[in-house]
């Protein structure tokens, strides 16, 4: 009786396998302790005292989704700040070393840089809108986070293209360390953000909107 009850509760949290597993263990532990010797009658009473599994699952899901939203929001802000800092560190390095752009690729570079700037501004606006939606509308919040992530990915892709254009034609040297390291940092920021966003409990959001 108890395993079935715990399973029915855990099933409703299947959008988050780790949460589902831990809730199942926690609820089973509670119910076996409440059921004493484990007789069917005591198991039945323990389950009755525990309450409606659907209601409890909904409340647990709400707590988990709110935590997920907070983590996604923090990841978004950190990724945006990380990309901004890495980008500026690289541009600072180019200035310091007077590392110019090859004339043949200047037009292409200017076009990519324009897209980069637009994408970054879109990301900044998206992050501001997501911050506004955070406590008001969870679905809107996650949608805005997804849009912002798309803009950040575009900006990082443009930065990668610009870095490749800037490094092209030069012999490998220690001067490459800063552009490559800052580019790696940008990619890492974007990857962390994508991983965080991929864990969005879409099923829960669909059911509760």
């Amino acid at each position: 009786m108890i395993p079935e009850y715990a399973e029915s509760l855990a099933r409703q949290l299947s959008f988050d396998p780790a949460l589902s597993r831990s809730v199942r263990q926690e609820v089973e532990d509670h119910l076996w302790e409440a059921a004493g010797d484990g007789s069917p009658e005591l198991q039945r009473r323990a389950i009755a005292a525990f309450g409606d599994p659907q209601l409890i699952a909904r409340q647990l899901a709400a707590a988990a989704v709110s935590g997920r939203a907070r983590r996604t929001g923090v990841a978004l802000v950190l990724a945006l700040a990380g990309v901004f800092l890495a980008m500026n560190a690289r541009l600072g390095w180019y200035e310091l070393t007077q590392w110019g752009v090859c004339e043949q690729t200047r037009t292409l570079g200017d076009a990519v840089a324009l897209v980069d700037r637009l994408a970054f501004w879109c990301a900044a606006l998206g992050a501001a809108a997501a911050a506004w939606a955070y406590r008001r509308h969870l679905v809107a919040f996650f949608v805005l986070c997804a849009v912002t992530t798309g803009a950040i990915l575009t900006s990082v892709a443009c930065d990668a293209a610009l870095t490749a254009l800037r490094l092209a034609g030069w012999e490998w040297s220690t001067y490459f360390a800063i552009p490559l390291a800052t580019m790696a940092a940008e990619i890492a920021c974007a990857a962390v953000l994508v991983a965080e966003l991929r864990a969005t409990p879409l099923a829960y959001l669909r059911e509760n909107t």
Partner: protein
Amino acid sequence: MLGMEGEMLKGHLDMIVLAALASGPAHGYAVIEEIRRRSGDAFNLPEGTVYPALHRLEEAGLLSSRWTTAESGRKRRVYALTKRGTGALAEQRAVWKQFSAAIAGLLAGRTPA
């Protein structure tokens, strides 16, 4: 003693759970037992509703949890107040004292000192 209304308790559940953990780390079942013992069985909530509160408080950084193995061999999640949780409880205690003094005064028809 009469069981308190569920709706009335829900608004204070987080504070109740924090207070139950003030005496030391405990697992969910022990938290519920502590609430029962300290309230003289006045709080009549479905036991399961304490778990969302525990999870919510952990998400908010007011509780921390770790898994241990009980004597029975079952895995058990034990919760403890964090520093922030202790602070939040002290704050809520002060607010509650003010609130209950105001209500007591109101019901008794006197002006609070």
